[in-house]
């Protein structure tokens, strides 16, 4: 089984992020670097290549909450009774067409791959969300971490000054915080729910900067006595959490779009989602390994076409600006941009001209880092009712995501006595869309 194939299993079993490990060493300077035999050992193992491959990689998930229609986005069925009114348009990849509601993305398919064959079966918002957030169905016995926490765990740096999992949601329907599950609160999201600035990241006006730092130093001093007498990991997590406060506070400006020139803001556009795409770029540029921008609410039981006309316009502008901007800054090759939600929508059109929940044949997109641009994987039938080629499960999508950013999808975690694979049993990456 995979466990035994892992060349770097020893290292991965230590509760030390190798990325953080090298990162700290680099910070500590050359002398201590050379003196640290473990680092030298690490440099001489095949681990290094994988390690370097993971350096500075990030994932941005554009979460289409409520379930976007695959027919109005990545898998149009023009002219079919299920197809709706919108046309399919040509893209910069001759063999690929997407919905005319995404004209800008149609010119950026060179960076983007599509999976058209997700069959995730769960058409319930709650269950579907958990499935697509964690890559596996909810289980009573194990609290699984979500994608953001897994990426934060794998790509985050122990000594990072910035958050390693930011979830931008705002006050929208279907808001789901997700969480770090068995990985623990260290990897829980910094969750922005009702403001564009994370909660409690800004110093109170009533406390001066000096007082704030003096106080933190004094707290640390008092805490040390207890920490020294209780060398336990749960106690040190308290110290680590307080240690991270000042760094996180200094990342406040990352969330402030007014720091960007007007031209950049115009480039992304004025909607909340488009501004959040800009924030996502700022965060990734500063080294945040996972950002989720949740765009709600696609649950178009009534007026599917009007809803998608609005939301696709928002998505098309925000996503294409994000890809362009990342590309221009040289970040796209290290940043994976994803779109999917909890499920897709029914091919059949209901009397309110809506589409309902549908998880049997729907689509996701993957752009940038590690992705074979222009690739399309899987196929649905002429009317979009079933997958006829390349059926993919949530876990296959997750394995593909991990592979794209250099995380071994056969990796396992040890939870108590139980080895738990990072992706669900029997799932594997889709090589056809990996670069």
């Amino acid at each position, binding site marked *: *089984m995979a466990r035994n194939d892992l060349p770097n299993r020893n290292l991965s079993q230590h509760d030390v992020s190798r990325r953080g490990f090298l990162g700290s060493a680099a910070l500590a300077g050359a002398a201590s670097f050379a003196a640290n035999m473990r680092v030298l050992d690490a440099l001489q193992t095949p681990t290094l290549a994988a390690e370097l491959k993971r350096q500075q990689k990030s994932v941005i998930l554009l979460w289409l909450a409520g379930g976007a229609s695959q027919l109005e986005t990545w898998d149009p069925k023009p002219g079919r009774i299920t197809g709706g009114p919108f046309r399919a348009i040509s893209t910069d990849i001759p063999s690929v067409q997407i919905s005319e509601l995404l004209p800008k993305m149609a010119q950026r398919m060179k960076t983007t791959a599509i999976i058209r064959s997700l069959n995730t079966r769960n058409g319930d918002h709650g269950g579907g969300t958990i499935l697509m957030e964690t890559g596996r169905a909810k*289980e*009573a*016995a194990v*609290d699984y971490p979500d994608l953001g926490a897994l990426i934060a765990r794998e790509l985050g740096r122990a000594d990072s000054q910035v*958050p390693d999992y930011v979830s931008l949601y705002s006050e929208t329907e279907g808001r789901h915080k997700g969480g770090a599950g*068995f*990985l*623990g*609160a*260290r990897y*829980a999201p*910094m969750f922005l729910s009702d403001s564009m600035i*994370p*909660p*409690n*990241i*800004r*110093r*109170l006006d*009533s*406390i001066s900067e000096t*007082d*704030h730092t*003096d*106080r*933190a130093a*004094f*707290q640390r*001093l*008092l*805490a040390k*006595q*207890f*920490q020294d*007498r*209780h060398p*336990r*990991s*749960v*106690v040190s*997590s*308290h*110290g*680590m*959490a*307080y240690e*991270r*406060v000042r760094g*996180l*506070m200094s990342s406040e400006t990352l969330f402030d779009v007014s720091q960007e020139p007007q031209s950049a803001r115009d480039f992304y556009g004025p909607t909340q989602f488009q501004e959040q795409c800009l924030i996502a770029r700022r965060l990734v540029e500063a080294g945040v390994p996972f950002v989720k921008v949740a765009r709600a609410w696609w649950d178009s039981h009534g007026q599917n076409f009007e809803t998608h006309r609005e939301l696709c316009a928002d998505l098309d502008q925000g996503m294409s600006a994000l890809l362009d901007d990342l590309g221009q800054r040289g970040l796209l090759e290290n940043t994976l941009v994803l779109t999917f939600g909890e499920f897709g929508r029914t091919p059949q059109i209901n009397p309110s001209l809506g589409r309902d929940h549908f998880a049997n044949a729907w689509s996701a997109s993957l752009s940038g880092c590690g992705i074979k641009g222009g690739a399309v994987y899987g196929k649905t039938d002429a009317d979009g009712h079933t997958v006829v080629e390349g059926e993919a499960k949530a876990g296959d999508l997750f394995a593909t995501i991990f592979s794209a950013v250099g995380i071994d999808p056969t990796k396992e975690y040890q*939870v*108590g*006595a*139980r*080895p*738990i694979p990072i992706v669900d*049993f*029997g799932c594997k990456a889709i090589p056809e869309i990996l670069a």
Partner: protein
Amino acid sequence: MLRQFCWMLMVMVVMHRCADFAELLSAELLPAETPVEQAIDHYIQLQLDTKQKQPASLADESTLIRRTTLDLAGRIATLSEAQAYVAATETDKRSKLIERLMASPDFAYHFRNSLEGLLSDGQRNSPGEWREYLLKAIREHRPWDQMFREMMTGNEEDVAIKPALTFLRSRARDLDQLTNDTSSLFFGVNVSCAKCHDHPLVDDWKQEHYFGMSSFFQRIYLTKTNLVAEKFSGEVKYKTTKGEEKLARIMFLTGTVVEPPAVAKTPEQIKEENDAVHRQTQDDKAGPPPKPDFSPRAKLVELALQADQNHFFARNAVNRIWALYFGRGLVHPLDQMHSANPSTHPELLDWLSRDLVAHQYDLQRLIRGIVSSQAYGRSSVWDSAGDPPGPEQFGLALVRPLSSRQYSLSLRLASLNPDTMTATSAPEWVNRRDEFERNSDDLANQFEVPGENFQISVDEALLFNNSARMWDEFVRDDGGMLIGSLKQKADQSAQIETAFWAILGRAAMPAERSACEDFLTQKAANPVLGLRQFVWSLLASPELRFNH
């Protein structure tokens, strides 16, 4: 889905027709009349001796009253409680402390909160009536087997018992959750890994155990008005890994099978029954749901408490209560009670289980015994030479994060003027405690619920550092607050002493005292602000965050 390998070892202790549980055990164990705490210390010491390990010394008195108060009252001790305990000279002051706390209103609140957390498996926001039910049951000293019976088969028409069904009601839409949670929380057996396949290594552990357990719950449904009811029929079918479809037998974890009574029904009768059930699920005016003669869940209760089958129920209760006070179970993880994961102290577990059954599942007797033991009173600091005993040996107290509610309550208590907190035994304390309880909800929800691999989150540190709430609510300087009281003190050293006792329940050590003096002197330009920063730093200390 076919799972390639099983990642949980799951072995059943199959005792098909064994003798009475107590009988089976009596031969090798300490006499039944041994005081509980003595039995605990006997077996814990026995194993330390075997492993040639020394336990840590006993915790100092201020640590001991803090720990005991947190565990029995769900809050830190007040300044006056802590100082009085340390100053007291009676030799039986520890047992008096335990008696006082267990008789105090705090005990029922805290044990209710603990049970609520345990039975909700980490989920928050359980219904108010469920919390009220647990509180009342604990105040009445209701035996654990009776509570279990009420939770599984309580009468929806009995207003006092109806809330007990919350356990089923909140899970009734999800048979897997119902099966797994009941099995795990009441019997210590996580059966979920046997859902997809037979155990690959142990012959007697089959899918039929999982589906056998779900068969007890298969007929449960919720009516339109959200009542827990049972259908007249209903069987669990499952597919083996070979694709063969099987009908599950109603089977308890011991392997004992319940045969539903063979009653011949006409197709009309069956239709009538099905229609009645259908009406219940559709119509909110359908009246009380019909009660079938045969109730699988009632059979589960009957079997689980039967003298020759009750070892799962009793051992799990002991193990989970033990873990509440020691931070880990005699069997660990708590839901892995099987022969491949034996108890570290099998005789102790047996002795305590036998004692629990013999004393009508009196959990408070067990708790009293646990907190009275030497093992419970060990220090959490290892300052002897050599390696400390391992956590499974219970020779060194574990550091346990406070539950979110313990923490919220303790923060509130610590931040108040200690002069207003002097009468925690007075009758009016009930109302005050109730008020504390309600006021602690909101802040408690800001903290993570501690679970396995718990870590303090950076959100918590940010909350302490930068929320207006922490600063304005807990570090205010008016007369009702600790800082208000400190302002009245004559000198720095009295201020420091009071703050340490109020927040950490102990005197400041010399090094701490001088560091605090330095800080307050440095902030002398604005002494009130200086005091607020000082108190904040103590409130934000890990020492307050943990039970140690």
